[in-house]
């Protein structure tokens, strides 16, 4: 074989699929090893920064917290444990009711230090406020005891002869005419024909008829449907008692009916967020520590990539969060759904902190960043979960899935994707953004946070098509911001809310489409010509349009069934021609408005701001027209 042939054969061998796969495998293994080394080092170094006294104190605090949590889980949080003393004979038929109450403490009849005495024939109440409160507590304890006993009866029809099905409804103002509200699990429910149910067996038969949704008619609802009704977002009644806290009992007395507020599930779900707020403090410090005095420079010159460093430094904290989440889930009865829903929240906490630590110029600024991240993300995840049983908007927070999971409710794949998808994507994009400035030229400069943000955007731009990619990648943030706007404006009258949402949507989307173009021009990435501006604007509009199509996922959870959802996202229930027009129109809109802002951005900050206002105006007018014309 000639030399030429030999070379050609080698080349062929080098390009073969198996060799390419081998090369890929080698690179992946090398990256994983580098990540593992950095992670191991991060753990050992972080451990070295904490002295023994702090470790001991932390362990004690963790044990105390675990004890309290275990107590709360086992018997509920009872700061009023044995608050009232009741004199009662051990053979009294009421003794068990008193003994089983957490508030009451049974005492012998001879004990003079009691608020209440229960004898065979009468009840003596101390003529004090405490005595009267003790009597009230005693009555509630007996009532609860009786209900518990009734539930133990084999013949439930005899125990609870009257069946009342309660169904909580959204406010009428938010229900589009002719639509049904079935708890939000129904898919395209706007048509009002009752055909669109996605959750199966949720009582659609009862709802689909006339669209008025008359509660409690019981038509077509058998016992299984009634039970399934508890799975809906709007939720059935929640009855008193410990189990009622988790989403409602099947039986009880009318007096024990409580609103669909999953208090216990919420409290327990909140437990997942608490550790995250502490973990990000340590994580943010570790990232910023690399930037102080150029300490991390030597890692950058080692044969590892910035991605390896970031992944390695993040991994221990993520692993810690996952570990804590699993432990908490096991302690409070959460299942895999809870864990899978909480991990993206943890990732978002970490990614936000990472970006903040990459932008902060000092530990003082980092404190501001971590507190902001803590407050915002805790609010963003916790507050919507309060409305778990009220509105599908609650699904903007993955914690809603946790509340559902703890309440024993099913979580559909669509719900999960809708709730977790944007959070997960946003976390990934934030990590990418932060890693973009994890390099010598950006890490150690003392530029202001807004300028660092522009640097981070610019770091992901290498050619015009990067503009389209970044626009598409902004969709998770746009989605979160728009959902947040809906959630915040949700309480206002719909006549006010819809225009405000339309403006908010325009502002969010125009910013998302233009900030990276402005960053690219500011960093002299492209020539500041009209032609280039128009090209970048068109690419940004196209990228955003394509990314926006991912919002179709909202159709899976019935959010468009709300008027607000229609205002923020693509409306449904329209003709084919209109739908085709609506497919093209947003593309034109995004391209036009992005071009307007790009033309402004090429001239500098002031003209960019002016152009942005103009683009927002165009966008608002467009939104108004769509909503008005499509009703």
């Amino acid at each position: 074989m000639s030399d030429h042939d030999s070379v050609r054969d080698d080349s062929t061998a080098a390009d073969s699929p198996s060799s390419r796969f081998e090369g890929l495998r080698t690179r992946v293994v090398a990256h994983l090893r580098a990540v593992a080394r950095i992670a191991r080092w991060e753990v050992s170094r972080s451990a070295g920064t904490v002295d023994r006294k702090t470790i001991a104190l932390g362990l004690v605090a963790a044990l105390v917290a675990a004890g309290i949590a275990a107590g709360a889980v086992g018997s509920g949080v009872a700061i009023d444990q044995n608050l009232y003393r009741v004199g009662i004979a051990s053979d009294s038929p009421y003794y068990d009711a008193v003994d089983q109450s957490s508030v009451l403490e049974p005492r012998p009849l001879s004990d003079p230090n009691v608020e209440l005495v229960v004898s065979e024939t009468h009840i003596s109440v101390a003529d004090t406020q405490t005595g009267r409160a003790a009597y009230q507590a005693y009555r509630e304890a007996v009532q609860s005891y009786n209900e518990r006993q009734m539930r133990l009866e084999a013949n439930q029809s005899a125990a609870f002869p009257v069946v009342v099905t309660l169904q909580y409804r959204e406010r009428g103002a938010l229900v589009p005419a002719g639509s049904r509200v079935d708890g939000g699990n129904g898919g395209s429910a706007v048509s009002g024909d009752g055909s669109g149910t996605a959750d199966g067996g949720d009582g659609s038969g009862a709802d689909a008829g006339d669209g008025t949704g008359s509660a409690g008619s019981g038509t077509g609802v058998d016992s299984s449907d009634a039970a399934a009704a508890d799975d809906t977002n709007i939720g059935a009644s929640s009855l008193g008692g410990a189990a009622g806290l988790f989403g409602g009992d099947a039986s009880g007395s009318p007096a024990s009916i409580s609103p669909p507020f999953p208090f216990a599930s919420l409290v327990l779900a909140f437990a997942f967020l608490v550790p995250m707020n502490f973990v990000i403090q340590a994580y943010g410090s570790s990232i910023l520590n690399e930037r102080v005095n150029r300490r991390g420079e030597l890692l950058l010159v080692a044969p590892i990539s910035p991605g390896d460093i970031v992944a390695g430094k993040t991994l221990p904290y993520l692993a810690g969060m996952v570990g804590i989440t699993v432990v908490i889930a096991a302690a409070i009865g959460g299942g895999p759904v809870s864990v899978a829903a909480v991990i993206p929240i943890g990732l978002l906490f970490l990614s936000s902190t990472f970006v903040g630590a990459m932008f902060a110029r000092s530990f003082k600024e980092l404190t501001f960043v971590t507190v902001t991240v803590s407050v915002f993300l805790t609010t963003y995840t916790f507050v919507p979960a309060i409305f778990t049983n009220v509105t599908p908007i609650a699904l903007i927070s993955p914690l809603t899935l946790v509340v559902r999971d703890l309440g024993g409710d099913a979580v559909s794949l669509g719900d999960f994707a809708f709730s977790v998808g944007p959070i997960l994507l946003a976390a990934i994009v934030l990590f990418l953004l932060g890693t973009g400035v994890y390099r010598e030229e950006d890490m150690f400069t003392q530029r202001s946070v807004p300028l660092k943000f522009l640097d981070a955007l610019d770091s992901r731009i290498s050619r015009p098509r990067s503009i389209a990619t970044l626009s598409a990648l902004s969709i998770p943030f746009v989605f979160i911001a728009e959902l947040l706007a809906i959630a915040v404006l949700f309480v206002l009258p719909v006549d006010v809310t819809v225009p405000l949402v339309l403006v908010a949507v325009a502002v969010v989307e125009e910013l998302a489409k233009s900030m990276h173009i402005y960053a690219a021009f500011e960093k002299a990435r492209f020539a500041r010509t009209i032609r280039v501006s128009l090209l970048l604007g068109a690419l940004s509009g196209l990228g955003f349009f394509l990314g926006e199509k991912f919002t179709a996922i909202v159709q899976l959870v019935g959010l468009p069934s709300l008027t607000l959802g229609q205002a923020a996202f693509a409306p449904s229930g329209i003709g084919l021609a209109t739908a085709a027009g609506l497919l093209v129109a947003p593309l034109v809109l995004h391209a036009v408005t992005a071009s307007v802002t790009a033309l402004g951005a090429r001239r500098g900050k002031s003209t960019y701001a002016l152009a942005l206002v103009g683009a927002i105006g165009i966008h608002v007018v467009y939104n108004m027209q769509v909503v008005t014309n499509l009703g």
Partner: protein
Amino acid sequence: MITVENLRKTYGDFPAVVGSDFSVESGEVFGIVGPNGAGKTTTLKMLAGLVEPTAGTAEVLGMDPEDPEMRRKLGFLPEESPLYEDMTPRSYLRFFADLYDVPRDVADDRTDEVLDRLDLEYRDRRLGDMSKGMKRKVAIARSLVNDPDLLIYDEPASGLDPLTTNVVLEFVRELRDEGKTVVFSAHNLFHVESVCDRVVILNRGEIIARGTVPEIRAEHGETTYHVYTTVELPATDDHPATAPEGDRFVATVDDMADVEALREAAESADGRVVDIRTDEASLEDIFLRLARESPTTSAAEGGRGRS
């Protein structure tokens, strides 16, 4: 070993490095000299793959500076030595050895040897409790943990006391003797003269002189002649006047023609030249003169700079 062609780096409108061209041969100590803000550190960081050039090319060890494989063969010592202060020298060096895939026992032997040579006893003391000189020695040891072919040292003796400076400079010479290639920046020109085989002088991002120190001296330096005579001579068009110094007279000139003129004048006055002493310009003198004459001095005024 290193080839640099038209290497440029600008920060905004500020030209930190303006079209550098040079090459570094294997086994030499190559100096990059210049004042603060001359572009030394930026040049070294571009060679180490830390900073992306705005234009031009740099090939280091036959590879792109950003190639991780190149970094495996590189030992980099930045101007500052910010170490992880909660670590000990041993744990710190083991960690970096691990990043370079150096086995633990090999790394321990290698770093022990280097630290012995640098006379650093404390291997298990917290780095935060060490002096600046000790930390610098640990940083130097770190740069050698992967047994690199090329060492890029940015101001290795910066801020150190004279004793430690001598240890470090002597160590650099030893590295050269072992066959390592060292690229070495300094603004203390004495350090450069005492260590470097070849140098480039940077000013405002531009190379204004290059070569061995003697070559630069020959090309850019001025030799001064002190001519001692037995008689006093007045100034003429051909030579300056002599001035009394002890029992002799002396004139200082910078041209051999003037020396010859003084000799002839002394003999005409029945005297003679009894001694001629020469002063060669130091690198520092040359640098200061070139910096003053550099046309780029005003061009880069007012910009933000990195040294």
